[in-house]
């Protein structure tokens, strides 16, 4: 037997492991930087990037590298939490919609309603309703990202219902719960997992946007949205590093998750099994 060469699956697995390691490092590094990100040093104000301060310092002399790392770790943690919760809502509503016609009508009205208000505006409204801050962002992002995944899951289950083996299981005396757990859930699980990971980029981008607008995390938190909105005042002075590094690393973070989700999608696709 020849040693199997590196196929798409092995590459995907290694890439996924690398990306997860990166996230772990960001989170750990961020928690170490939590204090340093807030310390101001008036002897080193507005330093451009250099050896002492990799990403420079802001107008209070705070180290931008620590602030960026801390901001990214906040983004990762919030993004994972909210994406998972949103995917959970999508799973429940998708299953409900596939149960009966009336429930389907209710769920699709809810989908239309959520998608009918511009996403940012809806986030602003929800954030207002719960009094801004961390709670506002978490709840807002959680309850607005489920529609597309709920639609996918609903379609998948409706298709599954027509399968002969479901009819056979019914005839064999399996109850609706048994069918749901033994036959439906394993089939929608791949969609659910990839959908959840692909929700993450949206969740992170919306979290930072809403924070940028002033409805999200409070100004003491070095979240990426806060860092960027604060940087606006100092851009005119030419302090480019305040905006460029934090934003670029946010983009890299989002791209990594997007890649992870897409390769997982290919991973679960049976037709592409041997690629």
């Amino acid at each position, binding site marked *: 037997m020849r040693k199997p060469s590196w196929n798409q699956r092995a590459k995907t697995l290694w890439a996924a492991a690398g990306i997860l390691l990166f996230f772990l490092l960001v989170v750990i590094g961020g928690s170490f930087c939590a204090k340093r990100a807030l310390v101001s040093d008036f002897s080193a104000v507005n330093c451009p990037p250099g050896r002492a301060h990799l990403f420079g310092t802001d107008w209070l002399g705070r180290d931008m590298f620590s602030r960026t790392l801390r901001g990214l770790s906040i983004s990762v943690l919030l993004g994972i939490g909210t994406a998972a919760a949103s995917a959970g809502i999508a799973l429940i509503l998708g299953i409900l919609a596939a149960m009966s016609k009336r429930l389907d009508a209710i769920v699709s009205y809810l989908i239309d309603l959520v998608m009918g208000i511009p996403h940012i505006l809806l986030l602003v409204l929800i954030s207002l309703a*719960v009094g801004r801050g961390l709670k506002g962002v978490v709840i807002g992002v959680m309850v607005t990202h489920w529609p597309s995944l709920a639609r996918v899951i609903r379609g998948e289950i409706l298709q599954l219902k027509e399968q002969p083996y479901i009819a056979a299981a019914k005839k064999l005396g399996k109850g609706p719960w048994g069918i749901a757990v033994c036959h439906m859930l394993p089939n929608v699980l791949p969609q659910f997992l990839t959908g959840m990971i692909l929700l993450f980029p949206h969740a992170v981008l919306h979290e930072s946007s809403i924070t*940028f607008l002033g409805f999200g995390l409070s100004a003491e938190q070095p979240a990426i949205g806060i860092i960027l909105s604060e940087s606006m005042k100092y851009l005119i002075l030419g302090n480019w590093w305040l*905006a460029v590094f934090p934003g670029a690393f946010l983009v890299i973070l989002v791209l990594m998750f997007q890649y992870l989700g897409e390769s997982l999608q290919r991973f679960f696709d049976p037709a592409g099994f041997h690629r």
Partner: protein
Amino acid sequence: MKKKNHGKNTSGKKRIVLFLGKNVLHAILLIAGVSVVTFFLVIQSPIDPLSANVGQAALGAMSEAQLEQLKEYWGVDTPAFTRFLHWAGDFLRGDMGVSLLYRRAVSDVIGEKLVNSLLLMVTAWVTSGLLGFVLGVIAGANTGKWQDKLIKGYAVLTASTPAYWIGLLLLLVFGVWLQLFPVGLGVPIGVASEEVTMLKRLHHAVLPALALSITGASSVILHTREKLAEVMECDYMLYARARGEKKTQMIMGHGIRNILLPAMTLQFASIGEIFGGSVLIEEVFSYPGLGQAAVSAGLGSDIPLLMGITVISALLIFAGNMTANILYGVIDPRIRRGGQRL
């Protein structure tokens, strides 16, 4: 055969009326839902409009009577349900109330800001649509080659980039370093509003519109690319190649016809995203549009204005979706026929 066709046509007209009626009903239900949800979200807010707008220090210095007056102005003590009924009744009569922050009729404020925003949004919508479609066609016709990789990379990158960060970068490069464009505001400071020429106004709108167009194109690119790549694999494309058609001929004759419709639908459905992007971009460039008004209304608990903007934007989104639905029937004869059969 002829008779049958005739019968189909009359029922077709009925179908169109039915189709429109259904859409209008749907719109009414949706807008009603949107306004109820919006109102109760805003009412729910624990943020005190008085301390948010007047400031704690000023409030402490006021007399009881003044406080009462303020409370009445911001509607603090009126029950939520009554306020909603008042609002809805006035709205149906065409009165959207008075903006608490601007102290003008909401419809006036929205009208003025909407014109500014539309300048941005329409430009971005058209450019991102056209650019996205052309780039998507180029990528889809050359799948796997460097053009495709470059364009796909651009689309994936911009999809993962927050719109406001692109705005900040543009501001930095063109506003601060090259000083080609002004750094903020819709019009120059210190110039009377009558003296602001259309040219100046456009000059101030270039960067925001560019930022919006850059981020808006990615979904059209990815979608068009995918569809065209699919179409290129079809049997009729193989046949066209066997007949000796050139690649451009194949794409112009068979490719574009098959992918134009879904791309247009997508573009019409993306109005909500363009609106969301404009909220962020307007904030970056301090551009006096609807998005900025929405943000200040939100931060200042200006409920009538926030309600008005939400309902108007929901209407815009709905109009976009409905136009897409209608276009499907108008452009594609197959769907028209299919709709009659149903």
